[in-house]
Structure formats: C-alpha cells, structure tokens
C-alpha cells in the first residue's frame, strides 16, 4: 500500500470513528425522545392542561396546577437571577482584572457545580425552616440561586465579545463609563444575553431536587407565594414513583410537556442567536 493510500485510509477511519461517537452520543437522546413522546402522547389531552389532579382511583385529570406552578417558580427565579446575574456579568467584563472579579468568577463557577439537592437544602434552611412553611418563594429562591451563575457567565462572555471600538466611540462622544455600558455595550449584547437567560430558564425549569423541600408540592391550585406549590417536575416524580397505572401515564405526559418547553426554548434561543451573529458579521 502506498503512503498516500495509507493516509487516506487512516483519515477515513478517524472520520468514521468520529461519526460513530456522534451516533452513540445521540442514541440516549433518541431513546428518551422516543419513549417520552410515544408514552406521553397517549396521556396528553386538553384536560391535562386545564384540569386538576384527580384523587387516587379516579382516572383522568390533569396538571394545570403544576404547569402554572412551574411558570411561577421560573418567573420568581428569573426575578432574582436576572438582575444579580446580569449586574455581576457587567462587573466581570468591566473590571476583569480586579481581585473581586477573580473571586466572583471562582465563586460563580463553584456555585454552578454545586449539586442541586445541596442548593435545595440551603434554601430549606434559609427560607423554609425559619417560617416553618414550605413556600413558592423558597422554591423560587432555590431555582434562582441555581440560575445566577449561568446568567452571570453568559452575560460576561457576551459583553466581552462587544468590540472595544464601540466603547471608545461612546467615550469619545463624552459618555461616562457607566453610560457607555448601559446605552451602548449592553444593548449591543442584549439579544445574546436574552438568549442566555432563556436557556438558563429552560435549564432550571427542569430541576426537581431543589424543589422537593422548598416549594414541596400541592394537590390543589395555588398561586400564593407563601404556600407550597406544585411543579411539573415534582409532580412527575410523585406520579412516577406511585403504584398507579393512571398516574404513570400522567407522569409521561408531564415529561413530554417539560421536554417540549425546553426544546422550544432552545430552538427560540438558537434562532435569535443566529440572527444576532448575522447582524454582527455584516
């Protein structure tokens, strides 16, 4: 075999191996999607979105309370994480060299790696024990804490990408540093930052562990911030470990709804990002 032929063969082998690895990585996703869709779709109907859970033994019912609960919990988390995360990201990109910035970066990365159940325990100690009451606020706090480092990181990364010439242009017109950040640099990165926030929301909407002993669960429809509240994830968990066939079906449907929310968020985010990068290269 000539040397060239040997090299071509080697190249093909490698490309083939890479392709195989991709397939292996995609198989779990394909199986998850297949099972969730095939199982969940049967149990999914309009009632699922509009009705409350039925007592054990009665078939039917839905997860209206859990869907609303997940929305409220995610909203509360965003309320906490977006201001804190975006502001931290602005600080990190504006003063990247300071000791505080290194400390914040390290803390943020560490927080991102803390197991979600630990964050749940923390929120339990902070917001449940003192009031002797599971609450929506405690759940939102736990999810918010999880979301902060993600938003911080995205914001920092996107602000750093804004060309320095943009800042200089603003300063040269007599803008103060703060003015330049808020009137030019953040708007330039805004589509990307919003995308990051949406992705972070999709990520925390799928969390179960931080909610188990903060928001807990609620069989009834509630929008009270000081009462326990249901969420899709905890409801899926509760139904899935139950011995009832009908509840299992409901759990599959819940999983399908959850996965759909995450997928739609990711796709919207992707669409927005590609439009932004087109704008940039122009």
């Amino acid at each position, binding site marked *: 075999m000539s040397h060239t032929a040997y090299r071509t063969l080697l190249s093909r082998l490698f490309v083939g191996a890479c392709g195989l690895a991709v397939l292996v990585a995609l198989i779990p996703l394909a199986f998850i999607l297949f099972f969730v869709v095939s199982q969940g779709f049967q149990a999914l109907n309009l009632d699922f979105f509009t009705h409350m859970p039925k007592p054990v033994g009665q078939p039917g019912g839905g997860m209206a309370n859990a869907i609303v609960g997940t929305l409220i919990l995610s909203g509360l988390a965003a309320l906490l994480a977006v201001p804190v995360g975006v502001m931290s990201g602005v600080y990190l990109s504006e003063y990247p*060299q300071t000791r505080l910035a290194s400390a914040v970066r390290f803390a943020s990365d560490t927080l991102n790696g803390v197991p979600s159940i630990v964050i749940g325990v923390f929120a339990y100690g902070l917001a449940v024990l003192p009031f002797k009451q599971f609450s929506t606020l405690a759940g939102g706090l736990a999810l918010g804490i999880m979301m902060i480092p993600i938003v911080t990181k995205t914001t920092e990364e996107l602000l750093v990408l804004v*060309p320095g*010439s*943009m*800042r*200089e*242009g*603003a*300063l*040269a*017109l*007599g*803008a*103060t540093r703060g*003015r330049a950040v808020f*009137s*030019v640099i953040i*708007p*330039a990165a805004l589509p990307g930052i919003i995308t990051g926030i949406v992705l972070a929301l999709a990520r925390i909407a799928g969390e179960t562990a931080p909610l188990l002993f903060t928001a807990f669960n609620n069989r009834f429809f509630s929008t009270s911030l000081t009462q326990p509240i249901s969420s899709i994830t905890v409801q899926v968990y509760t139904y899935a470990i139950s011995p009832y066939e009908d509840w299992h079906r409901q759990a599959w449907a819940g999983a399908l709804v959850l996965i759909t929310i995450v997928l739609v968020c990711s796709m919207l985010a992707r669409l927005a990002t590609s439009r932004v990068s087109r*704008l940039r290269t*122009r």
Partner: protein
Amino acid sequence: MTDVPTHATHLPPRPTVVRADRDGVADATVKVDVQNLSFYYGAKRALEGISLQAQTNRVTAFIGPSGCGKSTFLRTLNRMNDIIPGTRVEGSARIDGQDIYAPNVDVVELRRRVGMVFQKSNPFPKSIFENVAYGLRINRLVTSKAEIAERVEESLRSAALWDEVKDRVHDSALALSGGQQQRLCIARALAVRPDVLLMDEPASALDPIATQRIEELIYRLKSQYTIIIVTHNMQQAARVSDHTAFFWMGKLVEFDRTERIFTAPREKLTEDYVTGRFG
C-alpha cells in the same frame, strides 16, 4: 526663524512654532499646543518629548511608519489613553490655552469638545438617527425632539450623508456600507459641535471612492473645525493637510507645512520616508 525639533536622540526636545506664511498657507491662531509631551505604557516610553502646535481651521496630518506613536499621540489629545490601565503622560497639552491634563479638567467635557473618528467605523447597533443623536442625548446638549431632529439632519448634511439616508434614518446603522458608516461616525462626532476633530486613519479601511469622499469632507470641514488626522497614506496627507508631522519611533522628527515636508524636508529621515525608501 525658529527651530523644528529633530529626531536626534541626544538633543533636548525644543518647542515648535509653525513658521510664518511662506507657501501660501496663512498662519492661524494656535488651537492645540503640545509641549514636551512624553507618554508611557507602564515602563515603556511610547512618545518622547513631543512638541507641536495645531492651528484653528487647519488640517494637521501625522504620518510615520506603523508603531511610530502617531495614533498614541492623537489619543493623548482627547485623553482616550486614560482608559488603558498603567499609562502615564508627562509634559503639557493645551487646547485654547487650557491644560487638558490639569487635575480640574472634566474628561467627559473634554471629549465632547475634542471629537474623534476611529480607524474602523464603529456605529452603535442603533438606528442612523439614534447614532447621531447619541452625543446630544448623553450630554443633554439639546433636549426638545425638534431640536434633536434638526441637529441630526444638520450633522448628516455636514458629513455628506444626508442625501443617501434621509429616507431611512430610522433604519439600523449597521445596514450602511463601510464608507457610509464612516461618514455616519463623522456626523456623530460633529453633532456635539466639537472644536477639534481627531481622525485616526479614517479612510484606511475604505475603497478609493469612499476614501475620496472622506477627503473631500475633510477639506470642507476645516473651515469650521481644527482637524488632526493620522494617516499611513502619504498621498492622503499631501492632499488634505496644511501641516504635516512626521513621527518615527516615538519621536517627532519633523513638523512643517505639508508642502515643505513633501518637497524639501529638512531631515534626511523624513526625506527617506516620504520618498518611500522605508516605512
């Protein structure tokens, strides 16, 4: 007859006075007066004892090879280098007699008076209108909507862009061509009515036609502004400027009327550079 600083390292820098009328360019009042200015990036000295004067309603060009300090010097005139940590300025730079490095100087106000156009056009990701209105809004120069609109139109006209964009001033500035973007940046700088306009290689990223338009613009604008332009294009310096300063390795080698610099330079180094023997 006064001396012009030479590039000789061992000689102390001497103040420069632009000489009296000789080549048909009448002397005007001094707008920018720099005396013995040195600039440091940390311990590294990037500019060494620069002294020169730029006159009102004249175009002063800075030429020299890459890294000679001409851009750095330009950026000391609106204190743009302040944003780079670890930099330091010695000597004095006065605009209208006021030392711009004096402790009581408001940098924000200085930068409003000394406008700047950059090498690469840097429109903000906003509409054409909002780009030009930006300086007016942040400095609260004019507040009524009508006045802002008036000033935006006036600035776009001054920058020879109005006719091309008047029907789409609320479209994104990023949709403009490179040359249009650069003229937009000029309009943006003009809107706040600066006294001095600094231009850092404003046409280096543009095609010849767009370059020509910018040069024509510079020629027209000098009746109202004091313009200082950095360029690596010697023909451009010869075409647009009244006075030319030749920088080399952080020093001002020669500063004179543009015609003198290009036809009868005093220094051998200047002659070698303008005739293309190096650089």
